[in-house]
């Protein structure tokens, strides 16, 4: 045959060349997003609010035709001023996640099965409302519970109103920040968080507070950090067991043994007291029980000063905390001599056995140098004046229901108080104490079954005969639901989003839909309104609004009527407004309520830049109208406790949250997931951080796979040798190892929380995740997996 190789190549080449061409053409034609269908390509920018975390940054969503394609910051939103964090930047991955629940669903078959049947909205609403009416008519309205988390104010008011009118006190709200709120309540009598005035501060003493990355005000703090850093205008000292991202940006990192932050604060306080470095003028006017005092019975009691002078031994504190004596003294002197300085704690301290004590001790430092309600210290935000909803009319049934005690044992039947923990709630459900729960509502993302007590939670869920979930994603908790009413994402609905009280000025952002609700999802708030209407009189009479948007716009008019603040405006104008307002002047921007509302929706929201100092009754709401040291003096047990035998389990496990991932819930944001581990060059996999000294002792190499074992469980993870961790502590990040969208259940997920025992803060009862001991040993495999 004279068919030469060259000829063959020609033929083969011809075929293989033409085939891909054909494939290409088909590929392009079948893709509607790019070419074939004729889209107008018109671009619009919708001002709204990011709700990927509770921060409430102002954003613009770039919409091309009917697709949302990019998020940029709103330059005149006072919190983020045009900037967006990595989590926010990944927001559209939630909107367009392939894992979203696309329509209402009904459980088929057994309770723990994962089989669902698609139903329509009418059917779903009927099923829920008829069950609710049935319970109410048989005087069991109090046996329904609603579990929620991080809702906007108006949504919260709507839920509260619904539950009140229906007749149940069981609004179960989880909040990681309750320990801080408790501390402020005990010392200043307020049920609130305080704002850090970073802008005017010169010295920040942070006890493991991730204020640059994991606070609702992180974007504001980052901006101020950038500015002040450039001008060399701030010193940050970070005391924590692990060299966190915040610590790496601080001027000094003080490695400290886990759980001893409060003791360090006491040590610093003792230096301040002994050397009389405290602010005498402040303590005289605003503090109670600093000096010794005579109680009602005429007995002399020790004040904070004598208690500290009498009981605190610095060398002992240095031993327990692991902080050199010299450092303690140095920090105390710097802290008290730099004005203004501030000591900050955050939710991280809640997860220790002595969390509340720690926060109280840290907060007492602020009182010692008198920087509460002063520039550069801790301030209390004045709330935004949203309009009131009309008063509710309760019938006898609702009143009877509301008079029942709460299922989670929180005293008083105030719907607004946060729960002390999911644990008590579950125990009471299982024990039917004081009554059984017949129906549970789960709001979107409210219950994470990745928890040391997940067994108990699952048990409790199994015991509730009817569960309704508003989740937009199927997770473990929702798999118990009988009915799922999928909530829309924040790109698809109306909402109001006030910034957290940790920002010193009130800001109300308006969240408006950038795209129409995808699939069959419906905004939660509108579903609640529909439910209320469906249930008829007397419940429906309390909900006269045709849609949530109507209710929202109604309340927003309150901002115009309050005659303070303005819609978002340029920074120079904002400064002018602040100066005027703080001197008692206010000039209206808009002639009418309509013009105001128009401006509000265009610019993205409202703010009031002024802050009024020295309103004593607003800052101190204790009976004495003073800062009370008393609560700190009462605490006896101040040393941290750990579970697990020290000899068998030589290391303390320190679980921490990665940047911008404080709810360790990066689900369905693969961009966020692949980038948060950048410091360790690991995107999707989880790891354990070990000090080089420890690794040498255990003969463990970097990137090796090891077992981390506690008395409660064990996990196999990659080793990262890291000089930023104390030798006898090992740290593991939470929130890694997510599912890859579109490949659900494709791999085994490692959850570090299985290592945690049921230890609690002795005072608040919050589950402690930083008080378990572990051991580490080789798995015999290379970790380069």
């Amino acid at each position, binding site marked *: 045959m004279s068919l030469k190789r060259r000829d063959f190549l020609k033929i083969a080449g011809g075929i293989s060349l033409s085939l891909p061409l054909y494939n290409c053409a088909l590929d392009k034609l079948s*893709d509607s*997003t*790019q070419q074939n269908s004729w889209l107008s*390509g018109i671009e619009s920018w919708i001002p709204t609010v990011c709700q990927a975390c509770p921060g409430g940054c102002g954003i613009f969503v770039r919409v091309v035709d009917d*697709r949302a*394609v*990019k*998020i*940029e*910051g709103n330059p005149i939103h006072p919190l983020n001023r*045009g*900037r*967006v*964090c*990595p989590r*926010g*930047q*990944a927001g*559209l*991955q939630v*909107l*367009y*996640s*392939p894992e*979203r629940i696309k329509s209402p669903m009904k459980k088929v078959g057994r309770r723990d099965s994962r089989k669902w049947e698609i139903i329509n909205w009418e059917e779903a609403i009927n099923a829920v409302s008829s069950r609710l009416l049935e319970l109410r008519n048989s005087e069991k309205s109090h046996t329904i519970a609603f579990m929620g988390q991080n809702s906007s104010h108006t949504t919260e008011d709507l839920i509260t109103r619904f539950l009140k009118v229906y007749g149940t006190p069981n609004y179960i709200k989880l909040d990681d920040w309750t320990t801080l709120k408790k501390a402020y309540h005990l010392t200043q009598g307020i049920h609130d968080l305080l704002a850090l005035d970073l802008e005017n501060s010169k010295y920040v003493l942070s006890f493991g507070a991730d204020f*640059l990355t994991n606070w609702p005000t992180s974007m504001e703090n*980052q*901006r101020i*950090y*950038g500015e002040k*850093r*450039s001008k060399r205008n701030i010193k940050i000292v970070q005391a924590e067991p692990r*060299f966190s*991202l915040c610590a*790496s940006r601080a*001027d000094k*990192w003080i*490695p400290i043994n886990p759980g001893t932050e409060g003791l360090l604060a006491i040590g610093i306080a003792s230096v301040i007291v002994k050397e009389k470095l405290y602010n005498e003028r402040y303590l005289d006017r605003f503090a109670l029980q600093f000096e010794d005092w005579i109680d009602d019975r005429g007995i002399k009691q020790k004040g904070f000063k004598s208690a500290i002078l009498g009981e605190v031994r610095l060398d002992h504190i240095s031993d327990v905390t692991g902080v050199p004596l010299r450092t303690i003294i140095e920090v105390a002197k710097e802290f008290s001599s730099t004005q203004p300085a501030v000591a900050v704690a955050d939710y991280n301290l809640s997860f220790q056995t002595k969390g509340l004590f720690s926060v109280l001790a840290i907060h007492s430092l602020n009182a010692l140098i008198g920087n509460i309600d002063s520039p550069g210290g801790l301030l209390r935000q004045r709330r935004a004046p949203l309009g009131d909803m009309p008063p509710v009319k309760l019938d006898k049934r609702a009143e009877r229901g509301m008079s029942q005690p709460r299922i989670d044992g929180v005293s008083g039947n105030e719907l607004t108080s946060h729960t002390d923990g999911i644990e008590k709630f579950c125990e009471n459900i299982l024990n039917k104490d004081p009554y059984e729960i017949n129906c549970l509502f789960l709001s979107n993302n409210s219950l994470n079954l990745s928890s040391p007590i997940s067994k108990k939670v699952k048990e409790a869920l199994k015991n509730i005969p009817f569960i309704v979930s508003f989740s937009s994603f199927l997770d473990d908790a929702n798999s118990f639901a009988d009915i799922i009413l999928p909530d829309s994402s924040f790109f698809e609905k109306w909402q109001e989003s006030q910034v957290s009280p940790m920002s010193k000025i009130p800001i109300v952002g308006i969240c408006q839909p950038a795209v129409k609700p995808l699939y069959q999802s419906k905004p939660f708030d509108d579903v609640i309104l529909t439910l209320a209407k469906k249930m008829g009189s007397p419940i429906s009479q309390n909900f006269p609004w045709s849609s949530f948007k109507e209710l929202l716009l109604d309340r927003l008019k309150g901002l115009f009527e309050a005659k303070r603040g303005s819609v978002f405006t340029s920074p120079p104008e904002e400064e002018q407004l602040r100066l005027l307002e703080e001197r008692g002047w206010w000039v209206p921007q808009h002639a009418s309520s309509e013009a105001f509302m128009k401006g509000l929706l265009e610019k993205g929201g409202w703010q009031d830049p002024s802050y009024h100092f020295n309103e004593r009754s607003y800052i101190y709401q204790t009976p004495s109208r003073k800062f009370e040291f008393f609560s700190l003096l009462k605490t006896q047990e101040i040393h941290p406790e750990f579970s697990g035998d020290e000899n068998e389990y030589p290391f303390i496990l320190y679980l921490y949250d990665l*940047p*911008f991932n404080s709810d360790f819930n990066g689900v369905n944001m*693969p*961009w966020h*997931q*692949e980038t948060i581990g*950048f*410091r360790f*060059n*690991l*995107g*999707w*996999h989880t790891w354990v951080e070990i000090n080089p000294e420890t690794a040498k002792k255990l003969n463990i190499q970097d990137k090796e796979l090891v077992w981390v074992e506690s008395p409660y469980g064990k996990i196999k993870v990659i080793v990262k040798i890291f*000089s*930023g*961790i*104390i030798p006898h502590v090992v740290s593991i990040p939470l929130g890694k190892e997510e599912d*890859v*969208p*579109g490949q659900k259940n494709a791999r085994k997920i490692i959850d570090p929380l299985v290592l945690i025992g049921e230890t609690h803060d002795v005072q608040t009862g919050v589950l402690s995740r930083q008080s378990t001991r572990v051991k580490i040993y080789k798995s015999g495999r290379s970790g*380069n*997996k």
Partner: protein
Amino acid sequence: MTRWGMVIDLDRCTGCQACVVACKAENNVPFSTPELEVRNRVISWMSVLTIVEGEFPEIKERFLPRPCMHCENPPCVKVCPVGATYLNPEGIVAQVYTRCIGCRYCTNNCPYTLKYFNYFKPQWPKEMKNYLNPDVSRRQVGVVEKCTFCHHRLQKAKEKARVEKRKLREEDYIPACVQTCPTNALTFGDLDNPRSNVSRLAKSSRAFRLLEELGTEPKVYYLTEGEWHG
């Protein structure tokens, strides 16, 4: 002449990753997967390098955000056999995907290792194709890609300025990473305009460039962390 460049203030950078994610969102870079990560095939036009110095407890960490350096004397351009990568008149090192034959000479010759090869066809779940930016093309398998200084934004900004019969202003053209940076660590603009922020900052005594000794003349400048930081 215009010469686009960037200044990165390392004093301000907190390594937060906002620039990295913003870049992926703007430029249709698909998300990675655990498998791609293990095989070291993750594409990220902007990435933050972590440099750890010292030992416990005197540890220091420095973050180095790295987009393409857009060299004035780009080594990648010299080796491209097909002219798929070239230095454009305004100083942008451009990459034309349809010309690229995937030989990877440029990826190997980039001393900063900031060019990325598409070993696999970029993929998105069907729903996620909705957020693709219509101004940026999706890449084919087998081509090299890299940071473009978001040049599509420049084309749009130029058009807008011309329609409004005015000159291009500095704020008209900002890459996605610069726009989102929470601490304002990134500054972008015309290095040849003496009044621009970038040209002012690039002349600062703190300014340096990566691997300057190679003579690549990058147009991305860094400002060192001050002594005060330790």
